[in-house]
């Protein structure tokens, strides 16, 4: 225990316990509401917009995100904001304004189910199965990352951490379903802000404020775009076109608009307007997140100068915990640890709730047991929650050996999400895209990503980040081209089968009766303007 970074005392454990008790209470309180499969998997489509928005954002605020982004701020400086601005906002607005009408309006219960409606069974199977596998892997990564952090931070054994958090997540998801997960994500959102904001204040104060921080950073760390004319001009080793096409377009749209983990939150909203506004409203706090991640990461360059990929002092991913050790006394430390634990656990719960639904509706109900009762599927949801967590635990022990956790995460996204976005784009906006076009497009995209990943030498791209951006772009491109080509030679669906699924084939949604602050188009436009302004400021 003696070599741990943090030394929590009784008061800290009391604070952590308060949080654990509430997590369980929320799950148990929701138990009586979970009467049908729809309650368990879709929250009965009854959640108010502000809650789904924060959950939408928090589902992406896992521990990997937080630690990885602080690490990225340390490694690359201000360029890390691209993940929060161009790498998120346009996609979130696009999802809300243009895509959500088809998702929510089609009454599909999941992303793969939409693919089944729009394309065919094979496309759904390909997406459903690959998503289920990827989600369980991600869940295992979260668990592993958490256990590693807790070991270094608190001296807890990895097995203790893994089992403890797995059991707590298991209890509240298996009892309270998606609603429980969403509620905890919102609580976590506030815990993260309250729990980590003092680090930003105290570290900024120590480096002499914002302007002084920028002045003291190495060359190229204090501008978001200025060094991106060439790959050599910036620490991330990626040029502006890679950022725009790879991160801003393909990776970001692929993730935010098709990843069921986040889309699931919007689908739980109580009506179409709330569903549309879910991702658009979430884009505002998203733009504020760099305050908690990028700023402390950059301040750590000065405050904790000798972090490296595997230095004795700690690797990049330890930047946030080390700052916490530096500034948090017993008391506040409990809150800081709780914020991290909450983010670990809700990240995992997000994966588990997405997994249990895809498994139950898109694999089990679709192929293994078509006509069981609703009660049976509800039970299957709970069983698959347990199974998903057990598989995650095994995965946790397998994950090792990538330079930065973030890159690993994006490697996986690049394989699956970028081509998926291509077939969504064609499927939603081109009625002549055919069922087999969709299937072969998706397959070709995944194959392209895999071939590029395994076929090219590791140093082909200037950095892992650049590799991810470009791989995602080519996977998207291949999916797009192959789907278009195959669509010309195979039979399209009849128009009447596409009602509600394709642009131009469904009723226009009328927002005229809403006040301006609830109109998705107005909110989306404001969000985009704010994003552009921040980019100009940080240029």
């Amino acid at each position, binding site marked *: 225990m003696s070599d741990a970074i943090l030394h929590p005392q009784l008061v800290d454990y009391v604070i952590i316990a308060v949080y654990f008790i509430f997590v369980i209470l929320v799950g148990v309180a929701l138990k009586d509401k979970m009467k049908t499969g729809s309650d368990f998997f879709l929250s009965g489509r009854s959640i108010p917009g502000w809650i789904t928005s924060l959950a939408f954002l928090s589902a992406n605020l896992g521990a990997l995100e937080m630690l990885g982004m602080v690490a990225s701020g340390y490694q690359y400086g201000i360029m890390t904001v691209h993940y929060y601005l161009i790498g998120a906002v346009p996609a979130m607005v696009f999802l809300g304004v243009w895509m959500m009408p088809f998702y929510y309006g089609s009454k599909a219960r999941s992303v793969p189910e939409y693919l089944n409606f729009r394309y065919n069974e094979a496309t759904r199977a390909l997406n459903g199965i690959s998503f289920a596998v990827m989600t369980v892997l991600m869940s295992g990564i979260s668990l592993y990352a958490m256990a590693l952090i807790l070991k270094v931070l608190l001296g807890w054994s990895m097995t203790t951490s893994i089992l403890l958090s797995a059991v707590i997540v298991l209890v509240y998801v298996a009892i309270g379903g998606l609603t429980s997960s969403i509620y905890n994500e919102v609580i976590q959102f506030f815990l993260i802000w309250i729990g980590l904001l003092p680090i930003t204040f105290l570290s900024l104060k120590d480096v002499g404020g914002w302007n002084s921080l920028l002045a003291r950073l190495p060359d190229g760390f204090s501008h978001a775009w200025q060094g991106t004319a060439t790959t050599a001009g910036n620490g991330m080793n990626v040029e502006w076109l890679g950022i725009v096409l790879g991160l801003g377009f393909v990776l970001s749209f692929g993730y935010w608009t098709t990843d069921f983990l986040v889309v699931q939150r919007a689908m739980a909203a109580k009506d179409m307007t709330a569903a549309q506004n879910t991702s658009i409203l979430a884009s505002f706090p998203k733009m504020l997140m760099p305050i908690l991640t990028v700023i402390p990461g950059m301040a750590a360059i000065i405050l904790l100068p000798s972090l490296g990929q595997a230095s004795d002092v700690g690797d990049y991913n330890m930047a946030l915990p080390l700052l916490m050790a530096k*500034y948090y006394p017993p008391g*506040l430390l409990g809150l800081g640890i709780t914020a991290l634990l909450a983010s670990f656990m809700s990240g995992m719960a997000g994966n588990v709730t997405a997994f249990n639904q895809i498994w139950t509706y898109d694999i089990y109900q679709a192929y293994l047991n078509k006509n069981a009762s609703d009660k049976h599927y509800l039970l299957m949801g709970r069983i698959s929650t347990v199974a998903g967590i057990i598989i995650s635990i095994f995965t946790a022990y397998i994950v090792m050996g990538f330079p930065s956790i973030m890159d690993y995460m994006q490697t996986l996204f690049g394989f699956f999400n970028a081509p998926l976005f291509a077939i969504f784009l064609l499927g939603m906006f081109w009625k002549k895209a055919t069922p087999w076009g969709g299937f072969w497009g998706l397959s070709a995209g995944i194959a392209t990503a895999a071939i590029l990943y395994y076929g090219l030498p590791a140093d082909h791209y200037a950095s892992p980040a650049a590799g991810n951006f470009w791989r995602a772009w080519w996977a998207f491109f291949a999916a797009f081209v192959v789907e278009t080509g195959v669509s010309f030679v195979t039979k399209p669906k009849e128009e009447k089968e596409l009602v509600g699924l394709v642009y131009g084939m469904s009723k226009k949604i009328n927002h005229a009766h809403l006040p301006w602050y609830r109109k998705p188009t107005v909110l989306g436009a404001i969000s985009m303007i704010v994003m552009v302004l921040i980019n100009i400021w940080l240029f």
Partner: protein
Amino acid sequence: MKIFLDLRVNIGLVLTIIGIIIFLTGLIAKPELESLHGVNINLIWGIVTTIVGAFFLGLYFKNPDQE
């Protein structure tokens, strides 16, 4: 149990309770960490956390039926 179905109550209670604990910790003893330069961060942040928590409880009590 039913009161825990309202998210405002949950957020409010978690933050208020944790805020008060941190505040009291700061009240009893000043943190000894060197890098704080004498700032009693527990006292300050305990108050902030409690206020945010109380704000959410206030939202609930102002309009208990509607989320």
